[in-house]
């Protein structure tokens, strides 16, 4: 179970975080959240699918890492086998938290950094230091903060982007049937992608709107990413 607490330089002054990737650090996940700003780099390596949050039913975008529950095809004995690691993986074990504060008589929500203190990445012996000896933020922590910022902005863009996709009926459910050379079959369900028929039928007004918002580029990034499914299957075959 995750146990998130507010990061602070008193309690956590000696804390180090292990940056390696392995199943023992909880990295054996089949997907991780991504967002439009990251699509350009994600689509070079990973398929981008949409799926629904189990608690809210709302759509979000994911980078696909494996084709079965608990399978990450990029994890090897030498670590993460890809040039680019999705930021929602790299941020571990940190997450964005919000703190309600009273400021000038107004209730405000401030962004804070929380850490999962039950994470197996946490150590006092090895890894990157979070704080400098005198309590200042380490360069590592600064990089984490900028990643969390990036994710926070990305989440908002993602929600607006997906609202537009839904508004124009541009998402459709799809399933992938995978048959391996050894005869094993697997079906991926619960995923959604861009409906290309609807996309090509859009009027120029709507296309103009999507383009003005920068969404057209994101849409084509998602479509381009689908060719990576084949590469994932090859990774399975090679094991």
């Amino acid at each position, binding site marked *: 179970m995750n146990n998130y607490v507010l990061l602070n330089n008193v309690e956590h002054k000696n804390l180090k975080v292990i940056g390696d990737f392995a199943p023992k650090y909880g990295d054996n996940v089949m997907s991780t959240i991504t967002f439009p700003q990251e699509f350009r780099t994600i689509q070079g390596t990973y398929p981008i699918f949409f799926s629904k949050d*189990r*608690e809210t*039913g709302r759509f979000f975008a994911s980078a696909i890492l494996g084709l079965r529950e608990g399978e990450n095809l990029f994890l090897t004995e030498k670590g993460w086998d890809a040039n680019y690691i999705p930021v929602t993986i790299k941020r571990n074990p940190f997450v964005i938290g919000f703190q309600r504060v009273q400021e000038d008589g107004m209730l405000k929500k401030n962004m804070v950094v929380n850490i999962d203190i039950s994470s197996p990445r946490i150590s006092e012996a090895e890894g990157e230091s979070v704080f400098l000896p005198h309590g200042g933020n380490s360069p590592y922590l600064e990089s984490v903060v900028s990643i969390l910022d990036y994710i926070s902005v990305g989440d908002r863009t993602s929600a607006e982007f997906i609202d537009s996709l*839904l508004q124009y009926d541009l998402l*459709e*459910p799809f399933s992938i049937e995978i048959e391996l050379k050894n005869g094993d079959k697997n079906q991926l369900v619960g995923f959604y992608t861009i409906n290309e028929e609807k996309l090509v039928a859009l009027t120029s007004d709507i296309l103009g709107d999507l383009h003005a918002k920068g969404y057209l580029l994101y849409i084509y990034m998602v479509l381009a990413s689908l060719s990576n499914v084949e590469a994932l299957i090859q990774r399975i075959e090679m094991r």
Partner: protein
Amino acid sequence: METAHSLTAYLMSKANRLGEQMNDVVSRIVIVGGGSAGWLTAAVIAAEHVNSDLGIQVTLIESPDINSIGVGEGTWPSMRATLAKIGLSETEFFRECDASFKQGSKFKGWLNGSDADAYYHPFTLPDKYREINLAKYWLKYRDKVSFADAVCVQSHLCERGLAPKQITAPEYSFAANYGYHLDAGKFSALLHKHCVEILGVKYISDSVTCINAAENGDIASLSLQVGGVISGDLFIDCSGFASILLGGYYKIPFISKKHILFNDRALAIQTPYPDPNSPISSQTTSIAQEAGWIWDIGLPSRRGVGHVFSSAHIGDDDAEITLRKYIEQDVGKKIAEELPVRKIKINPGHREIFWHKNCVAVGMAAGFIEPLEASALVLIELSAAMISEQLPATRQIMDLSAKRFNEKFHYRWGKIIDFLKLHYVLTQRQEKYWRDNCESKTLPEGLRELLELWRYRTPWYYDELQIDEMFPSASFQYVLYGMQFSPDVIPPREKVKATEVMRAEELFSENFQLTQRLLTVLPTNRDLIEKIKKHGLQKI
């Protein structure tokens, strides 16, 4: 010149004939009365026709002085298709109508009134209903498991107050079939808004003062108190009990069914939950009483509870005491005694015909029967759908449409009455009301025949005479076996087949496994409704 002249004459005569036909085209549809009947009918017709090129205009006239009665807070699963068809978002429906999920009915105390006496009539058919008649193979387990529990998941879900789907399921799709419980007043208001803003229905708030006849006996127009005269080609009477066009103007006789279904009074009380987070029931519960029954319906913000009874068997005061005693169990004596009660008179029965000349009645203007199987709203949906789908193109063809409509709905009313009566006739209760209900002279002929047949064989789809029966034979199974009906003999023709026995065992076991799985993944009704209000359901 001669040629030109005759061509002109030809063109003129053609124009005249076209003109005649144009006058004859049915394009102006006038609905009298708001409420669920009026607005649902307007929505169904407008959604199908208004934006077509036929120039159809739907106008709804609602009297500002009349409050709609708002009976029928339960729907059938058919409402999902109806709402989807008129283009209403299910999320909006949940947010606006204080709606909850209904997965069927639970009948308590109808057999003998003992504590254990309860059965379900769920919305889900027995598993693989068209392939195999599981009733035959369930009979030998009847002492161990109820019929509904053995053949479908829904009674298990209802018993635990679970929702029929997860938040990730798109609008109108489901894990277990469902309809709704809703606040009828809020439902009418939402339909009103949708009809006027989206579907192009013209709304007039005014009272009808005079009905003006055409030469052929049709209704030509309606005079309004302030708004002048509204002409129309087809008039739809949704004026409720008043039935001002079909009953009031055309004097179509009313056929009473009180000799079969005795209940002619209802008392309704809107009941608060003991706690805002109290569970919301997944079914309508109908609890048998000394001379009638109590309905209990859970909406997100309150319960709708009422007592339907026969005035020949119990007085209004005693009926009210019975109802308040029931409510007292959950909210305590003090609150139960203070809650306001609404009295409703029911005249059980229907008009002799429903469509006469260019006037068709929908909803209570056509008829009303006790809400035991929530047949009011579904009859409105079916009527509206048939009027809309068969909308006569011209006046000449309308008499044929009317004939077919009358035959269809005559049959449907008969079937509803048969099916409602079935709930009463197998009782072992001893009160006079229940004994009177079992008197053979109160049985409709159709039901008498079916009961005779079922002494020798289990009901199945051969018993469905029409392709669009309101109650499939499965509904009869749920009620019959819920009421512990037992065939006299298992005749040789219903001899069980070895292969079918195996298949049945397989299905019983599949149903058990599916039930176990759904029990772990489905949220409670209240959880899901809160989530829908907060996050909405996706359209895909």
